[in-house]
C-alpha cells in the first residue's frame, strides 16, 4: 500500500454498527493521511462519520460497532492489527484525544490535580503522588491558575476552564498526534477564540500533529492547513485549506461553502437540497448522488474512487474521474 503521509495513513476503512433498525454503514472506505506536525481539519455534517473515524484511528470502536476492513497505519504500525496491550501504549501516549463535552469527560468525583497527575503517572510510569508538581506546571501551561484549579472539582469549572484542563491532559504525554473532536462546539464564540488561540500556541511549541474535527468551516479555515471533507461515511475531498476554499472540486464541498452564512457576505445563501441519507440504506454508487446538482448516470451505479487531480488535491467524484473525457464537457464548472 502506498504511504501518503509520514505519520498516519488510514485507508479503505469500513466500520458498521449493528442496531435493531439494521446495519448502519457508518464508514464506507475512508481515506485519510497526515504528516508529522500537520493540522488536518475533518469537516462534515452530523452523521458523516467524523467522530467514528477518529475513534477508529485509536481502535476504540466498541459494540455494537465493528471495524470490518481497512488499515490504520500509525508511523509503520497497523493499529488495527496490534494486540490490545500494544495499542494501549500508543493510545493516550502517542495519540491522545480531547472531546466536545469537556465536563462529561472529566471524572466528577476527583479533583483536577489528581486527574492530571494520574495521566502523568501513567505516562511516566511513576506513582501518582510524585506527579502533582508537573501537573501544576501543565495547568500553568494552559493558562490556568494552578494553585486554585488543582483542588477544584469539575463541577466548579466553567466550560472554557474545563476545556483547558482537557487540553492539559491531552498534551501531558507529549503526543505525536492530538485528536480534537469538536473541542469548541459547546463554547461561546469569545471562549472559542481563547481556546483556539491557546491550542494554536501550544501546538506551535510542542510541534505535534492535530486532527481537528469540526462542523464549522470558519474554525477549520482559521486553524488547519489541510482539510478533509467527509460525507455519509466517505472521504469526498482533501486539499490544503487555501486550495479547498479557492478551488473546491466536489459538488458537496462547493455546496457546503455556499451554504455557510458569513458576515459581510452579500450573495444569497444556496442550500443543498435534500437531507443527509440514512446510512442503514445508503444510496447506491456515490452516496451524494441524490442531492448532487451535477449528477450523471454513472454516479447512481458506481462508487467514485478517491483520486488525485492535482498536487495534494484529492477528490472522490465521477466528474473528475475520467479526466480526459470529462474535461471538455465540464469546461469551467469547477468554480
Amino acid at each position, binding site marked *: 500500500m502506498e504511504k501518503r503521509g509520514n505519520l498516519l495513513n488510514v485507508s479503505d476503512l469500513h466500520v458498521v454498527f449493528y442496531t435493531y433498525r439494521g446495519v448502519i454503514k457508518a464508514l464506507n472506505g475512508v481515506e485519510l493521511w497526515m504528516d508529522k506536525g500537520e493540522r488536518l481539519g475533518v469537516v462534515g*455534517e*452530523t452523521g458523516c462519520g467524523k467522530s467514528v473515524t477518529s475513534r477508529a484511528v485509536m481502535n476504540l470502536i466498541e459494540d455494537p460497532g465493528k471495524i470490518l476492513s481497512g488499515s490504520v497505519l500509525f508511523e509503520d504500525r497497523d493499529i488495527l492489527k496490534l494486540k490490545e496491550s500494544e495499542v494501549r501504549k500508543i493510545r493516550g501516549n502517542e495519540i491522545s484525544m480531547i472531546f466536545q463535552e469537556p465536563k462529561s469527560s472529566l471524572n466528577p468525583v476527583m479533583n483536577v490535580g489528581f486527574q492530571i497527575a494520574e495521566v502523568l503517572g501513567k505516562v511516566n510510569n511513576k506513582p501518582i503522588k510524585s506527579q502533582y508538581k508537573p501537573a501544576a506546571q501543565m495547568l500553568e501551561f494552559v493558562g490556568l491558575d494552578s494553585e486554585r484549579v488543582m483542588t477544584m472539582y469539575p463541577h466548579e469549572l*466553567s466550560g*472554557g*476552564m474545563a476545556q483547558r484542563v482537557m487540553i492539559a491532559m491531552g498534551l501531558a504525554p507529549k503526543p505525536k498526534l492530538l485528536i480534537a473532536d469538536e473541542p469548541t462546539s459547546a463554547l*461561546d*464564540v*469569545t*471562549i*472559542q*477564540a*481563547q481556546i*483556539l*488561540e491557546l491550542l494554536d500556541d501550544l501546538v506551535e511549541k510542542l510541534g505535534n500533529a492535530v486532527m481537528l474535527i469540526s*462542523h*464549522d*468551516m*470558519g*474554525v477549520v*479555515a*482559521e486553524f488547519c492547513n489541510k482539510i478533509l471533507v467527509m460525507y455519509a461515511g466517505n472521504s469526498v475531498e482533501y486539499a490544503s*485549506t*487555501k486550495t479547498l*476554499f*479557492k478551488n473546491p472540486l466536489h459538488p458537496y464541498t462547493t*455546496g*457546503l*461553502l*455556499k*451554504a*455557510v*452564512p*458569513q*458576515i*459581510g*457576505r452579500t450573495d*444569497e*445563501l*444556496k*442550500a*443543498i*437540497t435534500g*437531507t*443527509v441519507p440514512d446510512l442503514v440504506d445508503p444510496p447506491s454508487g456515490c452516496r451524494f448522488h441524490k442531492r448532487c446538482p451535477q449528477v450523471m448516470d454513472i454516479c447512481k451505479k458506481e462508487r467514485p474512487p478517491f483520486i488525485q487531480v492535482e498536487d495534494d488535491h484529492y477528490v472522490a467524484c465521477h466528474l473528475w474521474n475520467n479526466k480526459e473525457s470529462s474535461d471538455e464537457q465540464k469546461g469551467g464548472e469547477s468554480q
Partner: protein
Amino acid sequence: MSENLLEIKNLEKHFKLKKSIFSKVRVVRAVDNVTFSIPKNTTYAVVGESGSGKTTLGRTLLKLIEPTGGEVFISGVNILNLSNKEFMEYRRKMQIVFQDPYNSLHPKKLVKTIIGEGMKIHFKGIGEEEIRKRIKDVLEQVGLREEHMFRYPHEFSGGQRQRIAFARAIVLNPEFIVLDEPTSALDVSVQAMVLKMLKETKKDVNLTYLFITHDLSVVDYLADYVAVLYLGQIVEKGKKDDVFKKAAHPYTELLLNSNPIPDPFLNRDKIIAKGEIPSPINPPSGCRFHTRCPYVQDICKTQEPEEREIENGHIVKCHFPLI
C-alpha cells in the same frame, strides 16, 4: 422609518434565588432595564453569549414568563396590563419558535394535531374542513407537503421539524414571532434552507421577527436591526449595518472579531477576550463588561455608563465608545 409594532420599555426580569441561612436574598438580574422597539415588518436580532439573558428576554416579552417590571406595547397597547381574557387575542398575534425541534413537538401527536390545536382555541367555531385546508396551506408555505400532516414528529429530520414548529406559529396569522435560536440545532446545509424559508415567509405574510441567536453570521444574513446583550443589559443597538460596520462597544467588537470566518485568505488580528462572562448573580459594578474589556479605565469600574446615541438610532452604553 415605519411605525413600531412592538415597543419594549425598561423591561425587567429578576429571579430571586433561594435564601440560605448564611446569605442575604440573592437576585439574578436576567433581564435588566431593556428598552428597544421593533419596526413593523423587520427582523430585530438579539445577540449575546450564553447567560446573557436573551432567551429570558424573548419569553418575558411574550409573557411566557411574568416580568418583574417594565412595559411591552404592541400596536400601542400595553399587554402587561391586560387581563388574561383580553390577552388571548394578543397571544395569538405573538408566537414563538423554540430552539430544539426535537423537544418542542409533542411526540405522540400527529402533525395535523400539533398545527391545528391552536386554531381550535383561537378561532372558535372553525370547521374541521377549514382547519384541514389551512394546515395544507401553511405546510406548503414552509416547504412541506399535504401528506405530511398524517405523520408523527419522529418521522421528520431536524430541519423538517423546525419547519413544522414554524408552521404551527404562522397558522394563527400572527403579526410577531419570536425565533429563539431556530437554526442552531441544525447542520449548515439544512440551516441555509430554513433561513431562506424564514426570510421568504416574512415577506409573504408581513411578519415581524425577534431573532434570538448567538451566531453573528446568521444575524448578518437575516436581520435589519440588532441589539447586543451582555449580562441582561443592551450594550449596543441600532441598524444592523451600523452596528456591524461601525461597532462602538468593545464587546460588540470582540464578538465580531471572535466569530471564525471561513476564509483562509483573510489575515486579521484576533482580539482575545480576558476571562469569561461573569455570573449574573453578582454582576460587576460600574460597566458590567469592565472585567473583560481591553480598553478598561478607572471610571468603568465604579460608574455605570449612560446610553448615548452615536447617530440616528445607533445607541451604545459605554464610557468610551470606539467611534
